[in-house]
């Protein structure tokens, strides 16, 4: 497996949609190619740091406004 082949498999690798044969090839490649090993590790961390940290929160004021607007709409529609 070349570095380009490795990159082509990266999405399926992270999505758990890679075949066992290709998974083995990815593992073999990253054990001998330090650059790709780093790319694999840091891309994985990139995904988890965004998944684990909520960076945009709904404000309580907006939530109140939203529910008032929804209720007004629902009541008007009845």
């Amino acid at each position: 497996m070349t570095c380009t082949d490795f990159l082509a498999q990266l999405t399926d690798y992270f999505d758990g949609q890679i075949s066992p044969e290709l998974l083995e090839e990815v593992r073999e490649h990253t054990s001998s190619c330090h650059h790709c090993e780093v790319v694999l590790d840091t891309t994985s961390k990139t995904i988890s740091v965004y998944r684990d940290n909520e960076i945009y929160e709904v404000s309580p004021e907006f939530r109140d406004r939203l529910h008032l607007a929804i209720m007004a709409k629902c009541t008007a529609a009845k």
Partner: protein
Amino acid sequence: MPAIQSPGTEEIHPDVALVARAKDGDTAAFEQLVRQYERQIFRVAQHITQNREDAEDITQDAFLKAYEKLEQFQGNSKFSTWLVRIAVNESLMRLRKRKTSKTVSMDEDVQTEEGSIPRDFAEWRPNPEQNFNQAELAEILRKTIQGLPPGFRTVFTLRDIENLSTEETAEALGLSVPAVKSRLLRARLQLRERLSRYFGKKKEGLPA
């Protein structure tokens, strides 16, 4: 509705009952759906538009539109995916309005190969996020994702932050599965590259 026609082979999503009640005029059921998805819809809108006011307007509009069109929702997809699709369309429309001279679409910037080849091979420090407090970390993550083209950050948001499947992401964005995969790879690689500036180990001998 496939989920109802084939009980036993597929689990019925709890939203199905709530949507059915809401269609029958049960306001509390619709409010329950709003409560369940308001944070997700807001985050999606905020990630795409990068503007809190716009994201709040879009969240409200998306739910009001969903209520109006509830009868059209056939249950072929999950209610949440349908809702996300409404919010994405509203968000892209808002972006287009803001950037009047520039077209904004899911296809923007995908022709270039820029950012698709890794260049930074520095290892990251162990638990790099622990070197920043929560506010600093949030600022780094915001600044980093803001720099991505809208088409890339939208795919990353739906797939990796909101945890939609590749197929659901494709459906919500009106893209093919291969198109989602290609954008996702490039979004992940570009974010990785940019985050390496903050989280990468400093090279020895160079000032920190």
